[in-house]
């Protein structure tokens, strides 16, 4: 490949903050198209794929992981400065994901004692948050981990110069499009589908399982109170429901404000 051809390709970098690197892995798992896909980009950094890394200006930066340390924050700000587009990939980068499940519930000091037995914040951590809390994010690709198909379509859109299309409707839509029986209505399962961002093609309800919310609530449209109410009616205890909601969405205001009703005793 000539130097000029390479120059026309978007320069990209894939970066990890605090997280499991599972989202990078999902991109690498696009086995059928991986070679073709990667050949369309000029990859300057991709931790999971190659030790090669170049600290340079980028057209697009993909960031996974939450911001939970000073180091994360510094890295993130550096990426933002050097990149025309910054795309949060995976729930950790979008909203903090499972790392945020106890945010505003237990302090960092309490967590230090529970985990390390010392109160001092030796790792200089703070409550994990999505990257959008600190820098401008151009697009978000949710999921824990991200969906391969969705990521591929997003990359294709970007290559074509278009904004990626990410659903802003709930999993219920995909259940109905697929004709999957509703696990809440048919079986009284504690499905979070009504408030969770679609894009997984209702993977779990399609297997008869209740949605655990791994793609995070729909920003600006989540009726968490209604979910609490709907599951209460089906016999679930407040604590169970709230923990379930917090699992992937501890950073959402409308989930944080949900309080356990006194004497709430579900039988499940």
């Amino acid at each position, binding site marked *: 490949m000539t130097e000029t051809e390479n120059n026309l390709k978007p320069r990209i970098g894939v970066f990890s903050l605090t997280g499991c690197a599972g989202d990078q892995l999902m991109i690498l798992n696009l086995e059928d198209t991986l070679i073709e896909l990667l050949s369309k980009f000029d990859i300057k950094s991709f931790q999971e794929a190659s030790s090669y890394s170049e600290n340079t200006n980028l057209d697009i930066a993909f960031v996974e992981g939450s911001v939970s340390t000073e180091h994360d924050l510094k890295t993130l700000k550096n990426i933002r400065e050097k990149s025309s587009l910054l795309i949060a990939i995976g729930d950790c980068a979008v909203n903090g994901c499972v790392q945020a499940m106890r945010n505003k519930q237990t302090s960092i000091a309490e967590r230090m004692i529970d985990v390390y037995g010392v109160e001092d914040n030796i790792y200089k951590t703070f409550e994990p948050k999505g990257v959008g809390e600190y820098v401008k994010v151009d697009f978000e690709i949710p999921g824990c981990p991200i969906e391969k198909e969705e990521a591929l379509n997003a990359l294709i859109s970007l290559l*074509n*110069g*278009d*904004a990626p*299309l990410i659903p802003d409707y709930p999993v219920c839509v995909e259940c109905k499009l697929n004709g999957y029986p509703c696990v809440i209505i048919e079986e009284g399962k504690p499905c979070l589908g009504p408030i969770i961002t679609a894009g997984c093609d209702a993977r779990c309800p399609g297997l008869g399982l209740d949605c655990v919310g791994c793609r995070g609530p729909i920003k600006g449209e989540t009726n968490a109170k209604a979910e609490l109410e709907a599951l209460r009616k089906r016999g679930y205890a407040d604590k169970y429901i709230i923990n379930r909601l917090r699992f992937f969405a501890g950073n959402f205001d409308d989930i944080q404000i949900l309080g356990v009703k006194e004497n709430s005793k579900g039988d499940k």
Partner: protein
Amino acid sequence: MTVKNSLTPLEAQITRIEEMTSIEKLFYLKLIDLNTVKEFHYTPGQFLEVSIPGVGEAPISICDVQREHGRLQLCIRKVGRVTNAIHRLKKGDRLWIRGPYGNGFPMNLMENHDLLLIAGGLGIAPLRSVLQYALLHRNSYGSITVMYGVKCYSMMLFREEFLKLFREGDKLNVKFLLAYEDSDDFQCYQLSCERSDRCMSGLVTKLIESTAITPDNTYAVVCGPPIMYKFVVKELTQRGFTPAQIYMTMERRMKCGVGKCGHCITGSSNSIKYVCKDGPVFTYWDALKTRGLM
């Protein structure tokens, strides 16, 4: 399957592009298939669904009058996924169109009447087609008054064309008035020095306030951002315009253009309108009957 599908987009070529503002370009299109050219008729106020394969479709109103078969002009603001992609196209490139759709303005009904065209921002695009139609059939219409509200000189669409009308319109019995929001805009200020009764700082409603207009034998035709209608209609009704004398063209999410996809539905159960099919041109009377239309 050989059945002709009237909803399949037709191929068109861009024959010319004019950059009008930082966010708006004027595209000149030519239909490619000669068989479809003959069947392609449009009237002022109608719109097209413009496609970029692989990106999507957007409803765009046609901004000129049909002169030659199969040729048309679209003034497109860069505002979303599709229009951004259209803005990346160059002269000679192709795009795909469906239509024309919508009812359009009642040009026949308005014959032998004076016309008062009131536009804000990009709203001038469909009204330009009304203006051009009336000028093409000049003897069929009475006096024409155009009131155009812009943010500033650099955001003024069809600038040369309209400045000519501003200065020389009287020869054609056309009064062209301009309102500009940015009071510091020097070029607009110069225009207001040139003709203080025809160009003033303020919103388009200011032009209505400061101009002698009567509802007698007149139709008002309005197009602009949704917020504008309320104020313009208030001014007009205060001056004695009846709800049936005021025509306006509405914006909605018109995904299919043919009254199927449902996104442009508006109203309450006793008057549901598909803006794409029942409109996009409505009278103020329609708006009074249909909750949420205006």
